[in-house]
């Protein structure tokens, strides 16, 4: 955005501080080709394969009760993981931005950790902890609590991988904004909840929304971590991505791609929402800097 406005004024002589036309055109062509090869072709192919047997073939995939239960499980998982991470993200970034305490930089590193760890490992650690041979396995079996190969495991693994999204968006913003407004509100006699709902929350709302959108997309689409802990019990512990995998491995390609197209739509929706929020957020930022 910045550059669109900048270009005409700050590049007085175009020839010396810009590239010749043929370079421009070939660079644009290269990036268009590269992006279409790597982004558009796979995306379009999902829908093309899904509709290979016509619209009826497409909708037949959703009549399967296993598909229905996979969708339900995914929605439930996201409905638990996203709010929990939202609350944690807010709390953690508030603590990090406003207070000095021992181990703060360690905390920041730990928040980033799920990004750096392979999703498979994130699944494995829960199996090692709660699985039958795991550390807490015997105790859990005695009390008849099932975590691995059941819903709690899926929710936990999803929480782990989606854990950084909200906090990462908020920490830099809250650090930058500082605590003056909150202090002023406190002096004027606002109570804790008033400060939070009138000052803190509105200040970070776009960044928060941005984090939530990304967090949700990941929660619904997570594959590696969930596939380790779920046990692939059809109709019971299969999320949408796992259902796609099973259909695909059964050579039921049309159904696999039909279900996958749901996730692709979700991804597109995520991108659209993200762009809108980004745009609003930039507006707010500009207002803030003024």
């Amino acid at each position, binding site marked *: 955005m910045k550059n669109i406005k900048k270009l005409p004024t700050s590049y007085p002589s175009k020839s010396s501080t810009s590239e010749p036309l043929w370079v421009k055109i070939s660079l644009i062509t290269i990036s268009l080709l590269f992006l279409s090869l790597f982004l558009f072709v796979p995306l379009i192919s999902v829908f093309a394969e899904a509709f290979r047997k016509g619209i009826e073939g497409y909708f037949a995939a959703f009549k399967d009760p296993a598909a229905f239960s996979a969708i339900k499980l995914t929605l439930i998982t996201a409905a638990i993981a996203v709010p929990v991470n939202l609350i944690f993200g807010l709390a953690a970034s508030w603590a990090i931005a406003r207070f000095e305490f021992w181990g703060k930089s360690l905390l920041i590193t730990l928040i980033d*950790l799920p990004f750096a760890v392979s999703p*498979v490992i994130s699944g494995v*650690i829960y199996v090692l902890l709660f699985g039958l041979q795991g*550390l807490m396995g015997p105790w859990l079996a005695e009390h008849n609590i099932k975590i691995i190969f059941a819903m709690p495991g899926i929710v936990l693994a999803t929480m782990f991988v989606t854990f950084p999204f909200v906090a990462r968006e908020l920490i830099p913003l809250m650090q930058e904004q500082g605590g003056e407004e909150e202090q002023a509100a406190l002096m004027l006699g606002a109570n804790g909840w008033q400060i939070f709902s009138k000052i803190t929350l509105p200040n970070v709302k776009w960044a928060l929304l941005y984090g939530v959108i990304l967090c949700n997309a990941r929660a619904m689409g997570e594959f590696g971590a969930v596939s380790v802990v779920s046990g692939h019990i059809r109709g019971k512990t299969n999320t949408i991505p796992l259902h796609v995998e099973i259909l695909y491995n059964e050579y039921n390609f049309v159904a696999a791609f039909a279900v996958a197209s749901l996730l692709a739509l979700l991804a597109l929706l995520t991108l659209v929402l993200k762009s809108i929020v980004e745009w609003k957020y930039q507006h707010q930022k500009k207002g803030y800097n003024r």
Partner: protein
Amino acid sequence: MFYLSIIVLIPLAALFFKTTSLSWEDFWSIVSSPRVVASYKLTFGASFIGATINTIFGFIVAWTLVRYQFPGKRILDAMVDLPFALPTAVSGIALTTIYSRNGWIGQFLEPAGIKAVFSPLGVTIALTFIGLPFVVRTLQPALEDLEADVEEAAACLGATRWQTFQKIIFPSVFPALLTGFAMAFARGLGEYGSVVFISGNMPMKTEISSLLIISKLEQYDYTGAAAIGVMMLIMSFILLLIINLLQSMNKRFIKKGA
């Protein structure tokens, strides 16, 4: 803090705890067995090549998105994040279908004797797809922050455009480029979903480390899985450290420039 320790710390501790049940020799023999080493080689090799491809093309993409005007630019800009938003299982089956023998791209590769699916090449393709947003998204702000006056000064002093690019532009975005490379590389190391479908998972040939962990788990070899997991975790830690270092270098560079 409490939540963090339940979700992150305790499970991670469990991983290390599990490996301590192994003696040092046993641990070493697991993580250096030929099949495991072959998987490291593939994982690192494919991630490295994928990240390199992304660095080259990601630079061009970021450059065109920041500097040039053309129709559809905003859509393209938003689409760059697709690999990030698209669930990995979906991208996995989509890529496999495209590059398989009768797929859209695969049908042209097959007569040329190039086997993309179920080969290391397929793994590389999947990892390139996954890493693409990282390079573009780290480069874009760096390119946007570049001030026009240095370029103008260079032009005034008689530098050709290519010289300006080589001596002024490239060195100032180099840290960002390196960060993007490292991030794409790190992502590639841990990637699972998009690779399992296209790789074919042949032991010693197209089996990545993450998959090896899963197959160990399925054979109830929990300690083996934990050992490989620890190895990979250590490697990602080192990478994370390098990335943070690069980023702080990058910030210092920008501050100095401003």
